[in-house]
């Protein structure tokens, strides 16, 4: 059936994908992220883990060479291996904090937005309180209370992100709640849970995906800064923030030691941000060409 074909080819997701492909910057970011994710997943196939932690004082502070692509640090550890394994931690923290924050604030935000009134007021005022505390200070307090570990770092950064997420989700849902198709679903006899799950969330997914990808970037930077001030994961775990912090004593003699982790952080964060931008443009039907 030829007619059928020409109608079928044009679904919503296909449209989104086509618009996304047009955005070259976002496409490049996506490719970079793919490389980063793959190298994090298959890091042990590229370099063995003990290269990232075993010390080799004889070969310390060597500049980049064929043997050590990114040079070695003050303990003679291979910087390339440390960057590679650091990616695992950064991505883990970025994805886990965002997923956690999304779950909690998704629930709080949709309840506040959908039911409104007193519930909305209580939840949003709590979020305001949370928002008043600077994110890094909040994270430091949580780490100081719970102790230093990757899990606690995820909890700490996650908590500091709930309020912003919650606001966005609430506003998206508030906007959708007024749409006619929600009223139409009610007039068909659908109950609240069903309306939220089948009508509101699929429509809110666009802005939420965008926010998530931006949020991962913020989390990665947050994790690096916590490690930098000594509150993140503990040495000798390879982590970008710790690498930066250790490199600051050798800034003059071995600038590559601080530059390379810095570039890793910037490239990853920037890629997530640009991907988010691209997704926002692609998912917004008003920008339909």
């Amino acid at each position, binding site marked *: *059936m030829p*007619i*059928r074909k020409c*109608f*079928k080819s*044009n*679904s*919503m997701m296909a449209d989104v994908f086509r618009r996304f492909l047009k955005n070259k910057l976002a496409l490049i970011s996506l490719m970079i992220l793919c490389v980063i994710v793959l190298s994090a997943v298959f890091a042990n196939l590229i370099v063995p883990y003990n290269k990232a932690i075993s010390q080799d004082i004889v070969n310390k502070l060597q500049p980049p060479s064929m043997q050590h692509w990114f040079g070695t640090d003050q303990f003679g550890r291979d910087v390339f291996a440390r960057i590679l394994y650091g990616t695992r931690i950064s991505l883990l923290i970025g994805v886990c904090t965002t997923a956690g924050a999304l779950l909690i604030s998704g629930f709080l935000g949709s309840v506040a937005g959908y039911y*409104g*009134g007193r519930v909305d007021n209580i939840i949003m005022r709590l979020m305001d309180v949370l928002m008043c505390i600077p994110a890094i200070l909040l994270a430091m307090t949580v780490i100081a209370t719970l102790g230093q570990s990757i899990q606690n770092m995820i909890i700490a950064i996650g908590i500091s992100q709930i309020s912003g997420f919650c606001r966005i989700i609430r506003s998206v849902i508030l906007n959708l709640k007024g*749409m*006619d*198709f929600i*009223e*139409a*679903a*009610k*007039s*068909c*006899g*659908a*109950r609240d849970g*069903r309306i939220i799950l*089948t*009508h509101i969330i*699929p*429509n809110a*997914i666009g802005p939420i995906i965008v926010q998530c990808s931006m949020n991962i970037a913020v989390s990665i930077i947050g994790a690096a800064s916590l490690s930098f001030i000594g509150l993140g994961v503990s040495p000798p775990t390879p982590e970008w923030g710790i690498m930066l912090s250790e490199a600051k004593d050798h800034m003059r003699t071995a600038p590559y030691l601080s530059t390379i982790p810095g570039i890793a952080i910037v490239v990853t964060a920037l890629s997530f941000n640009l991907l988010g931008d691209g997704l926002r443009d692609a998912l917004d*039907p008003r920008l339909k060409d």
Partner: protein
Amino acid sequence: MKQEENVLLDIEDLVVEYHAAGIVVQAVNHINLRLCRGETLGLVGETGAGKSTTALSILKLLPERTAKMSAQKLFFDNTDLLSVREADMRAIRGACISMIFQDPMTSLNPVMTVGDQIAEAIALHNAEVLTKQEIQKRSKEMLELVGIPAYRSNDYPHQFSGGMKQRVVIAIALACQPELLIADEPTTALDVTIQAQVLQLIADLKEQLNTSMILITHDLGIVAQTCSRVAIMYAGEIVEIGTAKDIFEADLRHPYTIGLFDSIPDLALDVPRLRPIEGLMPDPTALPSGCKFHPRCPQCMEICKVQHPSLFVDQEHQILCHLMKNSDAQDLENGGPL
């Protein structure tokens, strides 16, 4: 005359007020309405006359926080809707009473295929008796019924034109074969040629499924085409109700109805300019005393400003105006027109 057992919807003394920020909006003021099985009632009035509010209060879908609704009687098919619990009301919505909304562009979920949306309406009320395949099949049948080929059921709303979307909306509304269909300005957002098609479709399906209908509109042309009875609403009141013949041709008519007809351009008559009704709808937060229409009425009398008119009844034709007097009722203090 109507037989009692044939009455599907019986509303007595319906009042709806919106309370917001200390202001009270009197949206619907003491409405009485009866609808028989298989009948089509046109509800006509300007924007803000309370037509949609009346429709939503039948479905009990008024915004909970702001709207206050009360009535002497709100019976649907011998069920008292006033005392029905919310869970039972959900079972009534869609299955027994369903609604077509004004704007098909926004009343479909943009991220669900139209087939799924029709299937959802069916599944909500038949999930226990029908299997998934049967629901899908019914959904496709409904699509065919409104004149859209079944293979398009996997398409998304944005792939349809406005008229097609409204057909989908109609398919959703009729999916469970409701006894009462409330169509809230179903053709306002469509252009004229599509309007005619959609109206014809609604009328055909209504005949086929023996559905009663309340057609809300501000277009008297549509009313003439489709409705057996017509109610004219003004400022939350029904000022005139009767058969279509009464409203369009009777000698005695409410001045507001006359004004509405005079506002329609007529090719056959050579008038230099249209005669619109002077002034604006009264502010619903501060309705005028007496007859609500008196500030704009060309035939306003002294009594109109102070006393609310009583209903003039001539068989099925009822008018809320001081100009008409029931022959058997004794005239009140002031007597005839001044």
